[in-house]
Every structure is written in C-alpha cells, then in structure tokens.
C-alpha cells in the first residue's frame, strides 16, 4: 500500500507558496486521499520566509512535517532551500529554483551571501543528498514568455514524484490560476513535469 507523503513548500512571501499548497492539496483531495496542510498568513507574507507543510495519504493526523522526514521539498528560492534543509533526508526529492533572492537592508551591514554553487555543493556533496534538482526556472519561464509562471514549472517537476495523476493536477491548476494565464501555466506545468527526463 502507498504510504503517506509529506511535501514541504518554501519560498519568500508573495511567491505563491500558499497557492501551490492549495493546488497540491486539492489534487490529493480529488484523488480521495486524506490531506492536511498548514499555511502561514499575515506578517510572514510581507517578504519574509514562508513555508507550507502538506501531507496526504490514507490517514493523516499532524499537518506539520517532522524534521528529516519530508518526501519532497519544493522551494522557489535557493536560500530558503538551505534554510529548510533540516526537513530533508537522503531520500528526499529536493526540487528547487537554482537561484535565491535577497534584499539588502543597509549599506553599513554588508551581508556576505553564499553563492548558488556553494549551497548546491553543500547539499549534494557534503550532506550527500543526491536527489537535489536545481532548475533555472526564471530563464525557462522567460523563454516560455512569462516570468510569472516560473513557479508552475517547479510544481510540474515536483508532481512527477507524487502519487497524483497528471490530469488531476492539470484540472486543479486550471481552476486556480487567472483565466488569461491558463494556457501558459499548463505549458509551464507540463514542461516542468518532463524536465528531468
């Protein structure tokens, strides 16, 4: 029998973390799974670090994921991937944007940011988490013609590691994005779903 699956979605406030959680949870719901998610609203949405925990399976009690026990980490920002890496283990599929954003707050306090390569190396080599997939979603989205669908690509990529059917994802996606962007979002999702093949 299929076991429960835990998905941690993270990013910066305003990137669509909450919406992604809604899309994945509805997909699981329409495939008759028990599902629970936990979101954070309010203060954290103003550019802070945001995470949504999502769990589905036969019977789910806790909406929150334990450390080292996420099956999938879906991250829209590489810095956030590193921040939440404690939820991963060697088996975890880590689907992440290959870059991170950070806003400097003052000139006096120069923050030295780790490079994208150093973060990816740390996770892949030092931690030995082989299932890290860093994808340059902004570049791909720009090629598709709309930088705003970058996150849909990542949702597509993570979808292949779930038990949920492609058609269910597409149906829910269509219902939850602006009508004008349905086509491009569908394209982005399908591209993301095949990108690792």
């Amino acid at each position, binding site marked *: 029998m299929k076991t429960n699956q835990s998905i941690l979605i993270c990013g*910066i406030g305003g990137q669509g973390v909450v919406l992604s*959680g*809604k899309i994945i*949870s*509805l997909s699981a*719901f*329409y495939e*008759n799974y*028990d*599902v*629970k*998610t*936990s*979101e*954070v*609203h*309010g*203060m*954290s*949405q*103003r*550019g*802070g*670090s945001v*995470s949504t925990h999502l769990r589905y399976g036969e019977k*789910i*009690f*806790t*909406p*929150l*994921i*334990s*450390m*080292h*026990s996420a099956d999938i980490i879906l991250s829209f920002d590489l*810095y956030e991937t*590193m*921040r*939440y*890496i*404690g*939820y991963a283990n060697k088996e975890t599929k880590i689907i992440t944007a290959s870059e991170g*954003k*950070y*806003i*400097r*707050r*003052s*000139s006096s*306090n120069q*923050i*030295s*940011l*780790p490079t994208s390569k*150093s*973060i990816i190396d*740390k996770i892949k080599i030092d*931690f*030995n988490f082989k299932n890290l997939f860093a994808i340059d979603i902004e570049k791909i989205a720009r090629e598709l013609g709309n*930088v705003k669908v970058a996150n849909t690509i990542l949702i597509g990529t993570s979808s292949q590691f779930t038990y949920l059917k492609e058609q269910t994802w597409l149906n829910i996606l269509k219902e939850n994005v602006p009508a004008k962007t349905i086509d491009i979002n569908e394209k982005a999702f399908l591209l993301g779903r095949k990108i690792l093949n």
Partner: protein
Amino acid sequence: MYFSFLKTFNDKILLTGNEAIAFGSYEGKAAIAVGYPGTPSSEILPFLSKFKGIYVNWSINEKTALEIAIGASIGYKRSLFTTKHVGLNVASDPFMTLANTGVRGGILILSADDPNMHSSQNEQDNRYYAKFAKVPMLEPSDSQECYYFSKIAFDISEFFDTPVLVRTTTRISHSRSILNLNADDMHNPIEIVNNNIDKQLINQKYTKDIEKFVMVPVYARARHKIAIDRLKKLREFSNISGLNKIEYNDLKYGIITSGVSYQYAKEIMPDASFLKLSFSYPLPDILIKEFCSKVKNIVVIEELEPFIENEISAFGIMLKGKEFFPQFGELTPDLVKEGLVKNGFLTELSGKKYTSNQQFNSNSNSNSNSNSNSNNRKNNHSNNQNHDKNENLNITAKTEDFNNFNRQDEIVSIPRRLPALCSGCPHTSVFYALKKLRVPVMGDIGCYTLGALPPLSSMDSCISMGLAFGAAQGLYLSKSSKKKVAAVMGDSTFFHSGITSLIDAKYTNAVFTAIILDNSTTAMTGGQDHPGTGKNLADSAIANKIDIKKIIEGMGITEIYDIDAYDYNSTFNTLKYALNTNTLNVIITNKPCVLYPKKLDFSNKFKINSDRCIGCDLCITIGCPSIIISNKLTDKNKPIPMIDFSCIGCSICKDICVFGFIEQIAE
C-alpha cells in the same frame, strides 16, 4: 444542497479551519456575525459573507463587535463574534459581564490564538478567559471539528444560558483538512442531556428583562450566583456530552491533550491511550479520574500555559506536562517527540526512529528529571544538540525558529529574512523622513509596524492596538526627550482605538505630532474595509464613509496637514515643520495601499543609471524590495544596486537619490 463555492466531492469538502468555522456557524443558524480583522481569525467573516441570509460585517473594534453580538442575542438571534486572541482583551469588558447575564439567542465567541506569534504582539493563552469568565470552551483539532463545534456551540450556549468560547490556534485556523459531511460522530450533544431542546428560544419578539440584562448590583449579585451554579452543570455536561473522548489502547501510556497537540501526539504514539479534551473548560473530572485510574503513566501535552495540567491538579491528581514540553511558542511534532523521550514514553532508535519505551516506569521517570528548568529555551537547545550528535548533519530540530538560525549559519550562512514593506508602499517615505528627523516615534500595530525594522528603523514602540497617541502623550509628559514626540497610526487602527486617545491628548493639551498613515484599508490582515473606506462586507450600498479629517477637526485640532506620501520632499518638509511646531498637530497621508483593494502598478517605471551611480547605497536604505544588488561594481569596487521587474513605479526612490541617478524609464 450546498452553495457552489463549497466545492463538495463525495460529500467531503477541503477547508481551512477558518472556513469550516464559517460554514459551521452558518449551519448552526447564526443570524448575525461580526468581528474585527486579526490574524489568524481574519478569513472567517469574508468566507461566511458568501452565504445567504446572514448578516456579516466588520466592526470598528472588538468591543463594539461583541456588543453588537450581545444586542442581537437580546433580540433573540444567534450571533457570532470573531477575534484574534488579543482582540478578546479589547472586548473583555462586555465579555466578563455577558458571562453573568447569559444569553437569549446563542453567542459563539471565536478566539483564534497565535502561539509563536506568527503575526501578533504576544502569545497569551485565551483558555484562561474561559476559566476567568466561567464560560464553556471548545477546542477543535482539525477542520472537521471546527465545523462541528461551531455548529453545536449555539445550542450549548442557549441550553446553558451562557456565551460559548471556541478557541483555535494558528495551526487550526490556517490548516486545510477534510470536512466529511456524513461523519457519524457529529451528534448534537445537547440531545444527550435533553431531548426537548427549546427551539422557541430564537426569533421571538423583543421583551424587557431587566433582572437578566441590567447589571446593577442588586441584579448582578444574583446573576453571579447563577453563573457559579451553571459551572456545576457544565462540568456534568463535560463528562457526559461525548465531546471529551477516551481512546483506550496500551494502558501503560496515557496522554491527555487538546487541539492540534492531539494530532501531533496521535501520530507519534498511536499505541498510547488518549484522553482527548474538546470541551476543555470546565474539565470532565469524572472522565479524568477514570482515565487516571486505568492508565498507568500519564502525561499532559498542551501548547503554551499548563492550563489542563493545573486544572487537573486542582482535582488532586498530580500529573506532569510542562516539565517536558515548552511553555512558549508552538508545539511541533519534533517537540512532542522530544518531550516524550524526556518523560520516558519513547526511546530513540537510530535514524530518528522512535519506539515506545517498554522499560518505562514512573519512578525512574521522576528521578531522571531533577532539572526543574527544563522549560527554558537554552535547556531545550542543549537537548536538541544531544539528539543531533548521532547525525552526520548538525542541523537544528526546528529550523523555522528564529533563534535557531544562528546554528543553521554554522552550515551555510543564510541571512535572516525580515518581512518588509511592499514595493511602492506609501509608508516608506514617511518612515524614511522620520529616520532623517531623528525624533522619538510612538508606533502602533499594522503593516507600518515594519517601519521599526531595519533599514527604516524609525518606530520605537508597538504594544497594543491604538497605543501610539496615548503613549505619545505619556512620553511628552515624561519630558525625557528634547525633541518633539511623533506618533504613527494607521487609518483602521485610528478608528479601532486611536480616536479616544487623540481626544484625550487635545483635552489635556499634550504636545506631539500625530501621523495617520491613511492607506484606505486594513492592510496587514488582508485588506478589510473599515468606516473610512465607505464600503463594508455586508452591503457596500448601505455603507457610509466616515471622514478622518472631519473627526479630528471636530476635536478642535486646527493644525492638520495632508501629505502626498509619494512626494518625498514635501513629505519631509511637512514633517519637519510639524515637528518643529510646539502644538498638537496632525498629519494625514493620502496614498492608498498598493495591494488592496487592488494591486497597483503605475506605467512609469524607474531604473538606476549604472554608468553614473557611485554606489552610495542611499536608495538601499529605504528598504524597497525592488531595489536589489546587481553584479556591477563602481570604479571603486562598490556594488551598484538595480531596480528589478517588481517595481511598481511609485517614484519615492527617485527623490531619495540626491544625485539624480535614478531615472524614469522612457516609455
């Protein structure tokens, strides 16, 4: 059968706790629903407003909202009042006496607590309000129970003649889970104690009853006695209603818990026996005694205060809880595991797997916990460290926790990400000007509280809603600042509780500059309407717009300045002038929020001239999220900032760059 927006599938609906509360209240035949927005309670009323045949509206503040609910109840209608935990403090005056008068139509008071303060100024545990007021309390642990408890709360309220407190937490209100409309355990508990529910109680014609509703001493004394007697009946109900459930399993381990803690514990120790408290005040003494007599070792798992633990100790049963679980912040599955290892219920196996401890006996347990300070954070951390020693990764047990970021830094330094004002936020220029003017700034609660954080760093207090003007008067009286005191407050906060303190300031001849950041919405909680917007949740056609300036003029304050917050130079000059005038004066900004009611995006965008920029970082210090670091450096190797695609074109940064190197992009 149901409304189309509920999207049922096999008679199931996927809802957040807040949405489920709204649906349950509707099914519970609430006729009037009011509240003031506050995370994590804000989504209940907007969702409820989608249903037909119920009056739903935002009120000016929590006290007024509860008073409306009380009036509706006196008028034989069922009413719902929603608030965040600290909002119940505002409404506590009517609440404490309503507990004595009781109700006609049922009253549900929904208090959404915020352990770990995701978006709050404190993490008070509102379960104490139930005990304080002697009113019954229900604590749901998922969306199913949010729906069910909200629905039955009105019957309980009317049957026992008392308001009912339903207490959620952020993890309940903002978690999505499945509501099964055919679940077989959603009985009406009142039917258990009484087969003849008096359905005639609601929808009657108004009548007077001064002994019930006029709380002068002679009647109030009688009502207080009634409230005390009611508590005995409620305790009996707590035992027999079926809302509190015993789940016997392995009789060696017993867990008494409530709310979301039940879900964590149930997943971690499914083989333990459980006493799940849903009707958690007054506690079911008989059930607890029964559980404690059958189960050998028992621990109490609850978030925040040792409420259940202390209540049970009053029955003469000494149980442990807070010795193993923190008294602050949220519980998480990991903290529950850790606590259960500490108290000896669980043994840790390799690879973060746990098993129930077969050697467990209560004596060794109490000896091993001689350290009475196990609740303080330091101690918790050292414990985490021990856990992690066997791991090849030195990772904290709870990465979301701010205090653990330092330890995360040991791996790869990921700087903390503080929340920020939005791109184009009109508050930006006011705070930047206040920073330049170096005056003490008494602050308040809203998005603009972010003006306290770097790089703007120009707000010096945030304690309660409506604090700013009162605190400014006090700071003025203290004579501790040579500079004139400034006070900032949002428009929604001004209506909530700023008006009274500004009147008091005028009345007492206090001297400070009151700044009202009027962005025409309640932004932080998601853009709810208030009296200044001229719209409302129930029916915007019947809403009146209340003019802030006219209110202030009515107080007799004559120096009132309107400023355009997107014009930085005039904002600075007006503030400078007002702060150099030795009178009580008021400044009102007039630019709307960039997110609500609709997302703003102006056609004129800006860019930094990277050929001329000298890397002085002045524009960085306004904290606009659209101004980011580019790869380019100046001749002197200083990083050159750039404006990214998220710029909405507010033009504030153009005024900040005194060199004129920020230019409008030609269309």
